[in-house]
């Protein structure tokens, strides 16, 4: 197999990562994430309407009908053959009022799915979620540090992990703006899963670097990293491809409710694969160069 000189293009990888994360951060700051009802409270109703031919079923008409009955809809979105209506309202009878309102003005309405969360529960969930993310990152950090017996590998693997979470969170800020995708408990679950995936791939590359270091102690560090990256690239890609195939199938063919979750896992897997080869390994090289510079001084 032809050997690629990875080291040569390090600046390019960082530019690519920079652009992707930059766009994500921009979206995050400009538009923020769209929290789902389970975090901020409110009601989400998915409704099917059998038209009675008086009015076409369209967003404006739904909104108008609801506001006539004193329900302010934050978002109205068509979903498959139904409509998703979200409101800040979380009183117990809100879905009944929505159904009554739409049934009178547009045609018989039926609730397909309902999610209603009180504000206290949402806040509590948010707290627990942050806790889980902290716990998982610390756990993974400790594990990597322990396995590689050194701060260099541990820290670089963690930066790659941070890279992946930024890409994932940033892209969901963008998706939220473009397609109204919301961030819910399952999204957080996806982030946590991706944290472990990210390290998963990175460990494979680092393992090989360590092994080569032992076998060729005299060789140049950058040369070793380059070879390890070359050697692990094939399996890293093949590995992720099988996961990506499954997730892609689920994102495209899966049900409405599971799509955002599958998409989050998919984005995370892609960036996780990219980062182990193009972020985690180059970071080691950079770290090594800085160390050398310091020694020379």
């Amino acid at each position: 197999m032809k050997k690629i000189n990875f080291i040569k293009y390090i600046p390019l990888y960082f530019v690519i990562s920079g652009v992707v994360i930059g766009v994500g951060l921009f979206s995050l700051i400009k538009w923020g994430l769209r929290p789902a009802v389970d975090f901020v409270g409110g009601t989400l109703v998915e409704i099917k309407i059998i038209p009675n031919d008086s009015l076409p079923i369209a967003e404006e008409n739904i909104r108008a009908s609801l506001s006539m009955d004193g329900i302010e809809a934050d978002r109205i979105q068509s979903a498959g053959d139904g409509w998703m209506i979200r409101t800040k309202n979380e009183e117990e009878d809100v879905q009944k009022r929505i159904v009554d309102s739409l049934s009178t003005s547009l045609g018989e309405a039926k609730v397909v799915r309902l999610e209603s969360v009180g504000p206290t529960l949402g806040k509590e969930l948010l707290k627990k979620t942050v806790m889980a993310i902290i716990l998982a990152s610390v756990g993974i950090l400790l594990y990597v540090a322990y396995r590689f017996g050194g701060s260099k590998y541990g820290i670089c693997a963690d930066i790659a992990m941070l890279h992946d979470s930024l890409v994932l969170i940033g892209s969901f800020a963008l998706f939220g703006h473009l397609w109204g995708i919301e961030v819910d408990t399952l999204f957080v679950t996806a982030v946590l899963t991706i944290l472990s995936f990210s390290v998963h791939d990175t460990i494979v590359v680092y393992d090989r670097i360590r092994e080569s270091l032992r076998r060729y102690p005299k060789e140049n560090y950058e040369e070793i990293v380059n070879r390890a990256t070359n050697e692990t690239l094939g399996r890293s890609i093949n590995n992720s491809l099988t996961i990506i195939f499954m997730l892609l199938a689920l994102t495209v063919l899966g049900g409405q409710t599971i799509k955002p979750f599958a998409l989050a896992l998919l984005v995370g897997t892609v960036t996780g694969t990219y980062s182990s080869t193009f972020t985690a390994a180059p970071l080691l090289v950079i770290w090594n160069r800085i160390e050398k510079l310091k020694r020379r001084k």
Partner: protein
Amino acid sequence: MNRSITIKRFWLIIFLVGISALIGLPKNLPIKFNIGPWKFDQKISSPEIDWKLGPWKFSRNLDIKKGLDLSGGTQLVLQAKMDQIPEADRAVALESAQTVISRRIDLYGVSETLIQTSRSGGNYRMIVELPGVTDTEKAKQLIGQTAKLEFKEPDPTTVIDGKATGSAAVYQEIFSMKLTDLTGQDLKKAEVKFDQKSGEPVVGLIFTPEGQKKFAEITRRNVGRKVGIFLDEMPITVPVVQTPILDGQAIISGGFTTEAAKQLVVNLNAGALPVDLEVVSQTQIGATLGVDSVSKSIKAGLVGLSIVALFMIVVYRKLGLIADIALVIYGLITLAVYKLVPITLSLPGIAGFLLSIGMATDANILIFERTKEELRKGLKLSAAVELGFGRAWDSIKDANATTLLTAFILYNPFDWSFLNTSGMVRGFALTLTIGIIISLFTGIFVSRTLIRLFYVK
């Protein structure tokens, strides 16, 4: 490696596959076909398990349990208002409320309901799952009501019809009782006690000062007669008053088992420590949406699986084919485990399962790539394969350790109150964990045995 051991392992795998296939079979699988003059028409069905071994019972009907999001239904999270109830009695009060609600739901005729209580910080909550119920208003009415405990005494104005005998007479006697002014509010607490002489379990009632007076009146009026205690209009016990009770501390005795005494105490406390429940979250999934989700997930799974299988064959040829066989075995074993545990499958759970299929090939790919590498170095096939398995193990171990760690945090097995206990997240974590463990088994043990037997020779 000793060939006879490999063959033994192979039989072990065949055995496991056979068992898993038997368990994994659909409930009823009609098979009909004709070969020439022979007609074959039979129903194959998965067995029901019902084992007893001393005190241990193990019975499974081997259906896949579907979560609410797949079966359709309603989930309510209720928060208990506990400010009126002394701190020490709160757990008891919640338990009593749970019993009351589960009885109301049973009477309403909903099957396979799930009622859990949880404590998060100072919040006492109850999570009620009602499969198949989409009338949330009705459900909330049933559940949201506060339990009502009432004491009744015989009504001297009703004439008991002397003709009724046996249970009909008892029925008439009980339901003709009239209300007294004593209610659950006057009862401080009920508890299980043990009779000092006989050691039998009895139920002790402690009244409030107000209740003490009312109860004294009632018992004085009714010595030798029955007094009925009703919860939500249903009689829970009808003791006979032996002597007037003036000190506000009554004992109900009468050959209780400890279990029955506890049950009565829970019911009494439901009235003594009434808990107002407030709906803090509700989820409702229509039945059609559930069916739709199942069929879409199956489709997505089959398509994904086919692509993965094809990919493995294209890239790794014969080795890939073996990995695919291992993958099918993986699927069978996983299905059997889901049915045996049993695992309630939800949409995120299915996602976890599909994800783990992708990851199941992971170990194989690591091994095959390593094998290819060793082959390139000029090693013999058998040596290359063995080295591939040996060297890849380190990476496989590390790589899966972090995923297991995350799954652990997501599942929160010790119910730490600072972490999430959401059913959805747990479903995902559980199927992912099971997937990883089984995939390590099939990816390494099964595929190594198959390769030794059919590929290396």
